[in-house]
């Protein structure tokens, strides 16, 4: 059962600022999602290998060869909302 407090915590982890209205609205919505998933608990999975990945595929590799896909510094910085000199710039976080 997700409480309003849980919702605030999830919001904080995703760096989303939620208004009181939104909190009232989303708490029951998230609970209905959880209830839906709870139905899965009723399936008998005894002896079934966990699904680690939806593709039945293993061992996909790349060779250690440089030069594919790299972009220039100018291109890299072109979408940055804030930059300084040759760096991306972000607010201080602690």
């Amino acid at each position, binding site marked *: 059962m997700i409480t309003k407090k849980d919702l605030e915590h999830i919001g904080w982890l995703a*760096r989303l600022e939620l208004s009181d209205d939104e909190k009232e609205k989303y708490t029951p919505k998230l609970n209905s999602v959880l209830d839906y998933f709870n139905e899965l608990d009723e399936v008998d999975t005894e002896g079934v290998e966990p699904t680690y990945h939806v593709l039945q595929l293993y061992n996909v*590799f790349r060779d250690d060869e*440089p030069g594919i*896909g790299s972009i220039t510094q100018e291109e*890299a*910085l072109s979408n940055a909302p804030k930059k300084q000199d*040759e*760096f991306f710039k972000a607010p201080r976080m602690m």
Partner: protein
Amino acid sequence: MYENRDGIMIGLEVHVQLNRLKTKVFCGCTTDYHNDPPNSHVCPVCLGLPGALPVINKKAVEAAIKVGLALNCRVEEHTQFYRKNYYYPDLPKGFQITQYDFPISSGGYIIIEGEDGEHRVGITRAHMEEDPGRLVHEGTIDKSKYTLIDYNRSGMALLEIVSDPDMRSPKEARRYLDKLRNIVEYLDIFDGDLEGALRVDANISIMGGQRAEIKNISSHKGAEKALLFEIVRQKNVIRRGGIVVQETRHFDEAREITLSMRSKEEAHDYRYFPEPDLVPLKISGWAPAIKATLPELPDARRMRFVEEYGITDDHARALTSELKLAIFYEDVAEKADPRTAAVWVCDVLKGELNYRDMTIEAFKKEHMLSIIELLVSKKITEDGAVEIIRALLDKGGSPEEIVKEKSLLKVEGDIVSIAAAEAIKENPGAVADYNSGKEKALNSLVGAVMKKTKGRADARTAREILLGKLR
């Protein structure tokens, strides 16, 4: 038995950058960025741009298996990647691709020089992950208003090696780090001279209390200092009747203290889930073939040095403690007397290098061979050889030039002989003492010969010549 009176338990998490690879772990960007401008070796994958897809570097997986095997770990049957979610500017995607409950290898150990002889430190696991970008703070970390980010390092292949809490003192922690670094250097997957190549987080608890995790340790010496501080801090908390709380602390290298970093409401909540963009790996079958190609590791090399070159275990240990030093020694020992080479490389050269904060690369092995040749052929004295080594490190040049410049050539036998005859003539008292059985009187005669030859005679030769004349 070592008595661990404060119940100190230290476990280390060491991040080793697999920087000998040509490309990053999930993209084709080059790892050779250290001398280039920031953000010049990046792509949509390591910048975390929408829609970009990671593909794992096969050589990185092989390197990780190599390390696992060298640490006596088992290579797991099934291994896969997870997303570790957190918001921090060093990770543009909002998560780090790492491993969680299926690491590539686990359950190993290494043997270190412990407080009471050989000590076994368990390796919980070694798992693969991507390196975050590099943050540059204007001013100090607790004062700067914003952060500048360079993503050249973002996506470098890292191996996080997690130890069991088996170390019982800061000294053992440092020994463990030395040994681990030594092993990964031998494996040729890691260059320790590059900036940020090896980074350490330390977990420490005392007297069965909660543990503190110390971050931002950048050197082996730093680890020892941070742990020493942390022991004192935790002891003080307990002495004042307090309780040590589990928390993350930041090591301030300049002040040699640790500072609390995160408050409670920011407790870790990484919400790990399987990385859907990377399929799982089944690679334990590679282990036997990779094991067969493992190079000789430090302990094996140490034992071989003792057997093959007849040198002491102490010399062998010191010489194999750094790969470059071991190679230097072997190259010299192939062409000169191995025991003489061990003494001069290990006891003399290494000491002079440490004193100057220099590495073995500052010295040419040809020069060491020349010096040993001059010594063995008795052309210079041992003091003269030390002087040559010092001059080579301080001013450069060649041993031959320095011998000439400083007139270090040992004086010839007949000159020593003349000096000995003079010394006997001029010191009848000492001669009489010697003849009456006071063997120590010979020392003053040797001293007189050395004085006459301005120290360029070999003391042992002078002694022999004097004995011959006094018989």
